[in-house]
Each structure stands twice: as structure tokens, then as C-alpha cells.
């Protein structure tokens, strides 16, 4: 009924207007507008209008599939949050290495038959050295007393004929010497000194911690690589799905002269938006995750007799996370869009 009416109403104008004398003027007008070809306008303007249109299209397309969009953003968020959290943990443990190294100490066991006078001279000499910040001399008698006191073995001391402990000097390397290699070379230097029977670094646990940190770092790198691929695939797949929804639009656009770039652009914007939103999600997850982990980290720090001031994500961390998300979104979208375009080649 309606269609018939419409036909009746719309059928008239072409035939009617043919007879009308003013019709040619309309045609003329059309011709004159055709003269302002877009090619004559600045390319920048066209380029900008295309980008604006692509962004609008991208947002509209995303809006039309809210659930896949939400899922994609969530998956990207989780995938980016995992390596980011590991980075946060590493970063929080790492700065305390300096503090830990300061606690590194070298114990020098003095020859048993060394004379007290020469030991005093030796200690005085150590104190003048630039690479040693602190020297503590513990005579054998004092060590013995302390040993008996702390172990509660004062009664059994008579069982031993004489003090079995050597004189010891405990030194701390200066703050400039913080890495294990330089502490080790200092130890070797001290080892060969005449009065020293044995020089021992008391920092095994520091080394263990370093080893753990290195392991976590390596793990985080491998996880990051896997997850980067995950993000690419997830975003690429969503773009592919979007593309199938807009199959007709792509075909028609190409039919009326859209370049591949024109067709690709909204998809790239969608990818960038997914990457950006995913990164934002990841940042949120990291904040929540680290806040939940803070008690555990504090506990670990307490075990190592240090304090960890939890820093979550710095501004540059946040920016680089956003950048990575955007790049991955762009990459995934690029791959998917190109495949779509090639598949739908007209």
C-alpha cells in the first residue's frame, strides 16, 4: 500500500521535470559543482576529513558490537597487566639492591699467631682505605664471650682448653663498591694480605636474591612475548569479526572508488581504540593487583631485613603501557584489515 503510494508520488518528477524549462538550469548547476573536484582542494583537508570520518566509523562500528568489544578490551587488559605487574615487582625489588649491597660485609679471619700490636696496626691501615667504609675489630676473647653468651654454653666452656675462635675484622665495602664483582675483587685483595688467614664475603643471600630477580626478569620477558602475540591475535580476530559485519560496506565502498587505505583506516582506528582501552584496563588491573600483593611484598622485605617502598607505576610506565597497547592494536588491526581487503578484492 505504502510502496504503491510512494511509487505514484515519486514517479512523476523525472518525466515532469523533463518538460520543464528550468530543468537544464538544475543540470547546469550540477555541472558547475562538478568543477570543484576534490583533487583541486588541498590534499591535507581531504586527508583530515578522511581521518575524521574513519574515526567516527570506527567508533560506530565498535558501538554496534558492545559485547565482543568489552571482551576484547578485557582480554587485552589481562594480557598486558601480567607482564606489567611482573615489571612492577622487579622494579620494587631492584632498587633495594643498593641497600642490600651496603649490607654486604667481608669477614677477615686473622692468623692465630698474629700479635695484638700488628693487628691494631692492620686495623688502622684498613680504616685509611678508600674502598672500605667501616672496620670493626672483634678480638677472639670478645667473640668467645659473645658466643658463650648467645648460645648459653658458658658452663661448657671449661671443656675446651682454650678459645677456639680467631680474631676477626669485619669490614663493609664503601658505597661506591656495590656490585658483587667489585666486592669479590676487594675480597681477593684482602685475602692475600699477610695477617689474613681467610677473607669471606657474607652476602650469599644477596646473590640468591639477584639470581631470583634475574629469573623473574627472564620469565617476564618470555611471558611478555607470548602475551604480545595474544594481544595481536585477539585484536586481529575482533577486527576480522567487525570486518565481516561490514562486508557490504567494504564492497560498496570499493565499488564507488574507495582506496584500500580508505577501507583499512576505520579498522586501524578500531584497533588503536581497542589497544588504548585494553592498556587502560591493564593499568587498572596492575594497581589493584599490586595493592593486593603489598602485604606479601612487605613480608618478603621483612625477611630480608629491608624495607620496600611500593611504587606502582610511574607516569612513564603508564605512557609506555599505553603506547605498547596502541601499537599492538594498530598491528593486529593492520594484519586483519589487509587480509579482509585482499579477500574482498573487487
Amino acid at each position, binding site marked *: 500500500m505504502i510502496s*504503491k503510494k510512494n*511509487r505514484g508520488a*515519486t514517479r512523476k518528477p*523525472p518525466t515532469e521535470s523533463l518538460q520543464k524549462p528550468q*530543468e537544464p538550469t538544475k543540470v547546469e548547476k550540477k555541472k558547475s559543482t562538478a568543477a570543484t573536484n576534490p583533487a583541486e*582542494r588541498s590534499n591535507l583537508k581531504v586527508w583530515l576529513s578522511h581521518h575524521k570520518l574513519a574515526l567516527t566509523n570506527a567508533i560506530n562500528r565498535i558501538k554496534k558490537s558492545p559485547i565482543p568489544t568489552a571482551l576484547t578490551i578485557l582480554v587485552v587488559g589481562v594480557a598486558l597487566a601480567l607482564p606489567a605487574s611482573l615489571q612492577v615487582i622487579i622494579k620494587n625489588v631492584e632498587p633495594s639492591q643498593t641497600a642490600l649491597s651496603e649490607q654486604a660485609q667481608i669477614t677477615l679471619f686473622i692468623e692465630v699467631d698474629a700479635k695484638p700490636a700488628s693487628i691494631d696496626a692492620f686495623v688502622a691501615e684498613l680504616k685509611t682505605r678508600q674502598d672500605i667504609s667501616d672496620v670493626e675489630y672483634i678480638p677472639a676473647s670478645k667473640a668467645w664471650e659473645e658466643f658463650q653468651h648467645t648460645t648459653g654454653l658458658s658452663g661448657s666452656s671449661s671443656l675446651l682448653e682454650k678459645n677456639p675462635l680467631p680474631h676477626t675484622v669485619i669490614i663493609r665495602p664503601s658505597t661506591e663498591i656495590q656490585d658483587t664483582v667489585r666486592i669479590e675483587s676487594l675480597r681477593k685483595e684482602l685475602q692475600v694480605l699477610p695477617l689474613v688467614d681467610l677473607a669471606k664475603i657474607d652476602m650469599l643471600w644477596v646473590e640468591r636474591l639477584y639470581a631470583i630477580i634475574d629469573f623473574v626478569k627472564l620469565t617476564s620477558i618470555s611471558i611478555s612475548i607470548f602475551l604480545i602475540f595474544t594481544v595481536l591475535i585477539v585484536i586481529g580476530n575482533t577486527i576480522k569479526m567487525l570486518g565481516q559485519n561490514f562486508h557490504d560496506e567494504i564492497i560498496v565502498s570499493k565499488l*564507488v572508488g574507495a*582506496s584500500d587505505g580508505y577501507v583499512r583506516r576505520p579498522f586501524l582506528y578500531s584497533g588503536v581504540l581497542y589497544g588504548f582501552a585494553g592498556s587502560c584496563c591493564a593499568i587498572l588491573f596492575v594497581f589493584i593487583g599490586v595493592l593486593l600483593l603489598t602485604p606479601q611484598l612487605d613480608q618478603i622485605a621483612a625477611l630480608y631485613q629491608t624495607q620496600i617502598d611500593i611504587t606502582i607505576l610511574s607516569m612513564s610506565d603508564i605512557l609506555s603501557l599505553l603506547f605498547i597497547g596502541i601499537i599492538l592494536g594498530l598491528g593486529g588491526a593492520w594484519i586483519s584489515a589487509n587480509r579482509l581487503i585482499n579477500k574482498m578484492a573487487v
Partner: protein
Amino acid sequence: MIKLQKVRKRYFDNHAALRGIDLEIKAEEMVFLTGHSGAGKSTLLRLIALLERPSAGKVIFDGVDLATLAPNKIPQHRRRVGVIFQNPTLLYDRSVYENIALPLQVNGYTPAEIQSRVQASLDLVGLLKKADKNPVILSGGEQQRVGIARAIVTRPDVILADEPTGNLDPELSRDIMNLFRRLNQVGITLLIATHDLELIKSFDFRQVELKNGLVYSPENASPAGAAIQ
């Protein structure tokens, strides 16, 4: 404007759609392409629109052999050729106006230009009042006219129409042919494939008949006077 030299097209299934076509269509000419279904009319149009590539022979458009056209120049070629199908291939997720605006957006026209051109185009096909409607609620004839409006909105040099009246009743078909004639009067070259011989009888334009992938004997063509306007 369009020149086909010994054009052959063989599909993957070894079906030979065109078996050596020689045809020339001059600028500002309007030509009817007739023949039974399967004669190769659609294939011929698709070759000119670069929707297909010939297996052999040359398709020359405005002096340029289309085979030598770089892939990045194909969009520019398509902008010069308006294509109208039997099914108007409209996008049903947007209004009539937006459908017609699409080629202009692709071409980077400003919103102001888009508005004036879309309206001029809608006016020409008599659908000015339906601009904001979704094409889904339009009748077949109206949808076809939306397709025509979309094809002419950029004012292409050439319009290729493949059975544009195939789904329409005789009265509507006549309207659309009149519309094509008017487009021809303003200098657009038209190549219209149709099997509706009854309809085109009253239009005095050159007819090219295809038969089994070949141009049928020249006696069928209309008098020379009609061939060149």
C-alpha cells in the same frame, strides 16, 4: 571513450563468457547492450568497471589500457565509472542520504558539498522526501533509484547499468530510462545492459546485441545517426 579489442573472458570453470569482443563506445554516447541471459552482458560491464580482468584482449578506457593501470589507480578509475546493478546493493544500516553520500565521502568532499550534491542527486531521481528514510522501507523502484542517485552523485564520466529495470514494472522502467536519457543529455556516457527489448524500442539509441559471447551482426544496430549523437 571505451574501446574493447578482441576481448575474451574465460572463467575458472572454463565457461567462455566473452569470445572476442570488438566494440567502441564514443564519449557522450548512450548504448543499449542486449542479448539473452548468459550472453556476456554482465561480464562485459564488469570488465569496464574493473570488477573483472579479461583473459585476453584489451579494454581501453579514455585512451588508457586498463590492464596497465597500477593497482593504486583502480580506485580513481572506479570514481569515473558509476555502476548500477539489478540489485541496488544499498547499505541498510544507514539512511538513503548516507547511502548516496558514500561515494562523496570516499572522494573527500566537504560536508557542505556533500549536502548540496546529495540533494541535487536525490532531486534528479525524485526521492528528495525520502532522504532520511532507511532504504529497507522503500519499494524496489525507489531502491533502484537510490542506487542510480549513488552512481551519479559524483558525476562520473561513464555509467554502466546492468539490468537496471530488471525488477521493475514497465512504467517504472520507462521512468528510469528517461532518467538515463537525461543524464546522457548532460554529457554522461551510458552503457545499459538490458533484455527488455520492448522498453528500449521507443528509445532511439544504438543497440549492441551480444550472442554467445560475441557481438551479433551489425544489421541489428540502430541507424548510424543514432549511434553518434
